């Protein structure tokens, strides 16, 4: 019973936040600077973390986050309420980040050059490094979808809305992301015993 109650409270809290977001965005559409500052406080840190994780660049993350919020300031009146405000904002971030990733294609490094990782001795960190490099080699749309799902924790439907594609496309992107990552890990010279551990072979 307690668990059920906490779920209900959590859902209620979530819907309350969503309603507050809508009210704030409506005020921003009327050029209310205070409302913009409130939305800024709510979303700028999350956007910055998301974009920093995506680009590994402080300056790029900050510029992209600023661009997203400037778009919000200019286009708040275009929000029609078809999705949550957060999904709409992350949709803007998705488009900005996609353009950035296409412009600055990641230069993959060979895992064979990273011998020092093996000597680091921390298997968990080593595994994270390998997988992270694999994620960085994914096509931009797959990488962004992985980040929306795993970093921001969006539902399948929210991911689809933010990406501007059907749910089936989102699932296909995640399917191919997993497939490509497995191929990357298989082909990248990971020692046999570690590869078995990663791939559950």
């Amino acid at each position, binding site marked *: 019973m307690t668990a059920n109650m906490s779920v209900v409270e959590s859902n209620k809290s979530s819907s309350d936040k969503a309603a507050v977001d809508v009210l704030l965005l409506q005020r921003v559409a009327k050029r209310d600077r205070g409302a913009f500052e409130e939305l800024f406080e709510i979303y700028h840190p999350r956007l910055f973390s998301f974009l920093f994780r995506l680009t590994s660049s402080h300056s790029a993350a900050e510029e992209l986050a600023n661009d997203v919020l400037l778009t919000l300031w200019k286009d708040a009146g275009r929000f029609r309420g078809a999705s949550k405000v957060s999904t709409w904002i992350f949709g803007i971030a998705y488009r900005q980040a996609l353009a950035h990733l296409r412009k600055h294609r990641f230069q993959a490094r060979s895992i064979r050059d990273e011998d020092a*990782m093996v000597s680091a001795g*921390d298997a968990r960190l080593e595994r994270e490094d390998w997988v992270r490099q694999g994620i960085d080699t994914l096509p931009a749309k797959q990488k962004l979808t992985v980040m929306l799902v795993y970093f921001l924790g969006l539902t399948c439907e929210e991911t689809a809305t933010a990406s501007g594609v059907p749910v089936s496309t989102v699932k296909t992107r995640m399917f191919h992301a997993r497939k490509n990552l497995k191929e990357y890990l298989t082909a990248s010279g990971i020692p046999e015993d570690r590869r078995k551990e990663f791939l559950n072979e």
Partner: protein
Amino acid sequence: MNSSTRIRNCNELRRNIPWYLNGTLADKAAVILREHLQNCSDCQADFAIHAEMRASVLGRELAPLKPVTRAEDIIGDDTHGVGKLSGARSFTSRRVAVAASIAIFGVVLIVALYPENDADVGNQLFQTATSEGSTDGIDYVLQLQFERSVAESERARIAAQLNGAVKWAVNDKGVYEVHIKLAAPTLQGLKKYEEHAEALTGVQSAKFTALQLPMR
């Protein structure tokens, strides 16, 4: 259940794994997937890779520098649609330019006030900046380039252990930008600091940038 039905079920069910992992899959679908995972080794293998992906995405993060932007920086004084700035990028560039100008002026001032009679200042700075807790100092940015063989985890460790280092990030070119607190060093002292940093194993080059931003 025949094999084709089982394969179709597998393909449908495994596509829900990402949302099962991030906790947003509906309860009923989650129960079905959980039961399926207990008996299907193919889906278990998929689950393992997705779990690795999620752990990597949510894993440790190199401490990012705090963003310096404020809400009013984005919208400026404008109340009619387009912000005071033509774009957030121009804001950042302008701010960097102003900060760099201030920094250059500051360095010139320091050199003028402190003649070059302290060849060992860099060494002293390097040895004592942290132990003296020079938190009132200026925030200098040291750009660190590593040799290719140095792993990311080792790079982060070296950056964190630099004396006076308070935070760091990796820029577009893979260069570590380490913010370092130093209390009014001379230009020669900064050069000495660079030399000591470059002498560390795995470090290819270490250069202070002219950029100094106030800590927020």
